[in-house]
């Protein structure tokens, strides 16, 4: 909502400071996003007296003047204005002044005469359209005084951020009411310059239909339109609005159209009551009304677009068809034009949700729809209507047809709410005197009906506050007006609540620790991805095709980020992410399965180059396997990796594939090192606390065996067999310490050296025992796996 400071000053009858009221409004719940000066910056212009006027020797329309600007010097200024007279006082732009249009005033010659400054018209100062002559200053201020102090400060526009619950703040009156409460001063409607003293009598009440000025008014949808006021002004003189009205509208950023439309806009910004003016003679069948739209009705709206009206939307109709979309926009054919002589003013209340539905369906938002969808004051509509009629008659010179009409089929009152002071204490923690409670409620325009003799205060809420429907709403108002600042912030006793942290939280933490310790950098990518994976849940209304689906896995986005680094010539990339992955449910329409996953991507050198080691090795698959194993140990203790393709996979006990790692092909530049990725579901397993194992008392004895492993035989099988059979011989570990492939051997056989670690908890093993055990294990390997010792 754009508010004019001057307009608010007119309500409060006192000068206001833009910054101060912005602070006050912020503390009342309506922060001001910006304070913008309106019109030109006048600080550069001063009051000056023309002491002498002579004819220009070489130009009929120019005069040469002498100007006293209070600087101690006088200036020769060439001037073309017809109204310049000796002794006159005018705004003066000194040499070096930048004009609103950007021109800089310099010393120059005009037809041979030196000009050392410029005397200004209103238009040259950006103060209006007046350009017939210089702006004459009627002031006693000494020469050299900035003209801003003489003309009165320029207006400011306050861009007020209005929350959806406060329609009243879409009018200056509502904002003035808040400031009135904050400043503790009264406020009332601004006086309108030149307004005829005659009051407009109240309109005549009717139910669903009635007539005024020969025009029939019918409400055919009571729910959608609870109230419809109408009045006709005859013999209007369509033309420009008076200057004050145009200034008010300009200040809030509304273009002046003509005196009739301007009056309706003025009322909208003053009282938050949108109105519409029709050319009364364009209403076919001399009728107007409100009904629900039938299917497929079409209207050419004011902006010239042809719009198909959504089914059931509220429409304004005349005797022949739709002439407006209620609360949103009027139709072109019934608009007020220069040729209009009789005007019908509509001032109505519409169901906020119907207006909202219509404007959403139409994909448009107007000043009127913005207000109607938040809720206007149907009870205050009469006052707004009467003020509008009066203003309209005044600015157009027209005559009001009497009586005017007020169709209010189901008259009602704003609600009455009961407030318990005890509840105020319970919610706010503040034991307020009921007089303070009453003060706060009166300040927002509520009527406090009863005193709290029986622990309840009856409050009649004002019609412009549709958000006040329950006791708690009043408590908020009390807190707001009393001041959030005035509520203490004392820490009270707290009762501990036992509730364990969600296990997923700790799981994510543990995974991050592992990955950071490995030297990886965490990244947060968008969870939305392009389509392409059948498991990815699809969005109904995505931002773009790039964001059509929810990610079924995290690692593809990491690969993309690696590629981005590559294109920036960064080859050492170590990324990880912990986040949610989504898998579409097999059951149509059911929520997707969500799982917290950790993913990583590694490429480049395993450590930074050092002068002592200028070419460190690149990450390889074994690093990826280790990272995956570390994550598996955290998230799925006991789960084993299986070889899958050229990488590894992990499966849950139910067979679901829950993790993988391995090399991946990406869009890599020729210089890039291989890229490895891995990903795993984190689950919610908490590994629990590690159990202490007594430190060995007796030394371990090791034996290294270099085995000839035939093609197709996995080392894992060998290790597993050794462990299984070796346990009874006190074999504690089998370590793979070397692998050698003889390039001359073509059959894929290789030599693998394993180290057997024997240790007893009860005594020192003897060499003989260990040799015997090793021999047995060798035999086992030969017999069961066809793996023999390398013949040396």
């Amino acid at each position, binding site marked *: 909502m754009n508010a004019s400071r001057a307009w608010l000053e007119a309500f409060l009858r006192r000068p206001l400071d833009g910054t101060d009221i912005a602070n006050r409004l912020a503390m009342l719940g309506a922060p001001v996003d910006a304070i913008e000066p309106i019109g030109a910056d006048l600080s550069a212009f001063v009051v000056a007296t023309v002491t002498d006027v002579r004819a220009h020797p070489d130009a009929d329309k120019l005069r040469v003047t002498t100007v006293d600007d209070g600087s101690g010097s006088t200036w020769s200024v060439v001037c073309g204005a017809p109204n310049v007279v000796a002794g006159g006082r005018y705004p003066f732009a000194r040499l070096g002044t930048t004009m609103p249009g950007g021109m800089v005033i310099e010393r120059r010659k005009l037809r041979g005469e030196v000009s050392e400054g410029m005397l200004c018209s209103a238009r040259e100062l950006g103060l209006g359209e007046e350009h017939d002559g210089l702006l004459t200053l009627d002031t006693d201020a000494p020469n050299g005084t900035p003209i801003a102090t003489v003309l009165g400060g320029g207006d400011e526009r306050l861009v007020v951020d209005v929350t959806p619950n406060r329609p009243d703040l879409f009018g200056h009156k509502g904002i003035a009411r808040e400031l009135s409460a904050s400043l503790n001063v009264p406020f009332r409607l601004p006086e309108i310059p030149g307004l005829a003293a005659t009051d407009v009598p109240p309109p005549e009440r009717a139910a669903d239909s009635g007539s005024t000025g020969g025009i029939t008014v019918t409400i055919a949808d009571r729910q959608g339109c609870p109230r419809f006021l109408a009045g006709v002004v005859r013999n209007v003189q369509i033309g420009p609005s008076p200057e004050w009205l145009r200034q008010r509208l300009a200040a809030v950023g509304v273009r002046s159209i003509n005196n009739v439309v301007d009056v309706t806009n003025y009322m909208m910004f003053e009282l938050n009551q949108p109105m519409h003016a029709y050319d009364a003679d364009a209403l076919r069948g001399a009728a107007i009304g409100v009904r629900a739209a039938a299917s497929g009705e079409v209207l050419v709206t004011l902006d010239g677009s042809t719009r198909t009206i959504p089914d059931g939307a509220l429409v304004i109709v005349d005797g022949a068809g739709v002439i407006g979309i209620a609360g949103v926009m009027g139709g072109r054919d019934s608009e007020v034009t220069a040729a209009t002589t009789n005007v019908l003013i509509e001032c109505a209340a519409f169901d906020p949700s119907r207006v909202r539905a219509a404007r959403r369906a139409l994909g448009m938002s107007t000043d009127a729809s913005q207000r109607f969808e938040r809720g206007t004051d149907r009870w205050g509509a009469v006052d707004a209507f009467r003020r509008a009629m009066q203003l309209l008659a005044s600015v157009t010179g027209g005559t009001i047809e009497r009586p005017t009409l007020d169709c209010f089929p189901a008259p009602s009152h704003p609600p009455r709410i009961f407030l318990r002071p005890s509840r105020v204490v319970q919610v706010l923690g503040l034991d307020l005197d009921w007089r303070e409670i009453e003060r706060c409620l009166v300040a927002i325009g509520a009527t406090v009906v009863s005193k709290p003799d029986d622990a309840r205060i009856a409050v009649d809420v004002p019609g412009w506050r549709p958000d006040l429907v329950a006791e708690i709403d009043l408590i908020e108002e009390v807190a707001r007006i009393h001041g959030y600042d005035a509520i203490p912030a004392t820490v009270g006793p707290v009762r501990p609540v036992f509730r364990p942290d969600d296990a997923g939280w700790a799981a994510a933490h543990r995974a991050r620790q592992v990955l950071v310790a490995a030297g990886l950098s965490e*990244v947060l990518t968008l969870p939305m991805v392009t389509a392409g994976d059948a498991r990815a849940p699809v969005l109904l209304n995505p931002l773009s095709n790039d964001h059509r689906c929810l990610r079924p896995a995290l690692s593809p986005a990491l690969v993309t980020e690696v590629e981005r680094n590559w294109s920036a010539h960064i080859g050492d990339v170590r990324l990880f992410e912990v986040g949610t992955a989504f898998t579409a449910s097999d059951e149509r329409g059911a929520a997707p399965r969500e799982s917290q996953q950790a993913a990583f991507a590694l490429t480049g050198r395993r450590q930074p180059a050092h002068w002592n080691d200028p070419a460190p090795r690149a990450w390889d698959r074994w690093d990826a396997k280790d990272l995956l194993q570390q994550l598996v140990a955290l998230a799925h203790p006991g789960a084993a990796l299986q070889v899958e393709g050229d990488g590894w996979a992990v499966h849950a006990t139910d067979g679901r594939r829950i993790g993988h790692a391995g090399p991946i092909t990406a869009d890599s530049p020729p210089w890039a090192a291989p890229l490895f990725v891995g990903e795993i579901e984190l689950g919610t397993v908490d590994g629990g606390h590690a159990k202490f194992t007594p430190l060995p008392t007796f030394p371990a004895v090791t034996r290294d065996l270099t085995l000839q492993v035939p093609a197709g035989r996995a080392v894992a099988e060998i290790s597993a067999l050794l462990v299984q059979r070796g346990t009874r011989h006190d074999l504690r570990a089998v370590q793979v310490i070397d692998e050698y492939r003889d390039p001359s051997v073509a059959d894929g056989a290789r030599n693998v050296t394993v180290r057997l670690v024997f240790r007893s908890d009860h005594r020192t093993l003897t060499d003989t025992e260990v040799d015997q055990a090793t021999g047995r294990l060798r035999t086992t390997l030969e017999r069961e796996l066809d793996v023999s010792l390398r013949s040396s």
Partner: protein
Amino acid sequence: MSAPIEESPATSLRDRLAAIATLDAGALEAEDIAILGRKQGELTRRLKALATLSLDEKRAQGALLNALKGEFEAAITTRRAELADEARQQEGAGVDLTMPGRESWHGTLHPVTVVIDEIVEIFRGLGFSVALGPEVETEEHNFGALNFAPDHPAMDMHDTLYLDPDGAVPATGERLLLRTHTSPVQVRVMREGPPPYRVVIPGTVYRNDAFDPSHAPAFAQVEGLAVDEGITFVDLKATLAHFAERFFGRGTTVRFRPSFFPFTEPSAEMDVACQLCAGQGCAACKGTGWMEILGCGMVHENVLRNCGVDPERWTGFAFGMGPQRVAMLRHGVPDIRHLYAGDMRFLQQFRSVGS
């Protein structure tokens, strides 16, 4: 009492003791063996020979020899350390110690994660525990239970992404959406069992917003909920002001302004004094001197009722904040999109943050 003549061997030993400080490494080790060697050492031998002496002599000689043995041990240890130092220095001579040290890669947590963790840790310290919830939610959890009226302009603040139902109508008749805030987790927590509750809820939320310098279609939120008997607006202010001091530093000033959220009433925004201009007013705070940090309020009666909690008995407060915004303020990141990128040059700038 010892006769002077009997001291002569010891005297010669004293000379050798004095000479230890001048021996080189080889001679030192030889001398160690010659004097203290377990089998043939001079002192070892003499100590052994004590056994043959009378009790009085044993006492006199024994004390002398043992003292001498201690002195030898000390002298040899000292000389050995000296020689080691000298050797190390000689070895290091000619090495340019200003050459760079060997680096390793430093893993980094994302700055947003660090902010989330800090916030969560502060509230855990205040007796809150972590609750999480799904990111795909029902309209009822995301809006209905939280007192959003259908077709209310408040919905405009939550531009919602819906899941494509693929022609199916969910059993509940409700559309599935990506949660627009973490507040549905409040609903889940409250429906799980009776109050009191004290939970802090970190999570990702979604809005149908274009990806621009200040908006992202998915971002983090940290939410909190405290419901108990006797919780008032005073507790809300006290708890959140305490949080601000813990998070932004002692002496951080805050202000609470009225605001509007469908799920709290009274509602408030908490501002902290602008971190960049210390409240003086600058471009970052739009000249107000304040930065909006979190939204909060007393849990709306309707929300409590919708979750089966009696608002006449239980009251509470809730709050929510955006870690991306806090991280941007903290690190001076001008464009939110940096926070979604995997550029190593960006991520490695946060080496010093977090663990």
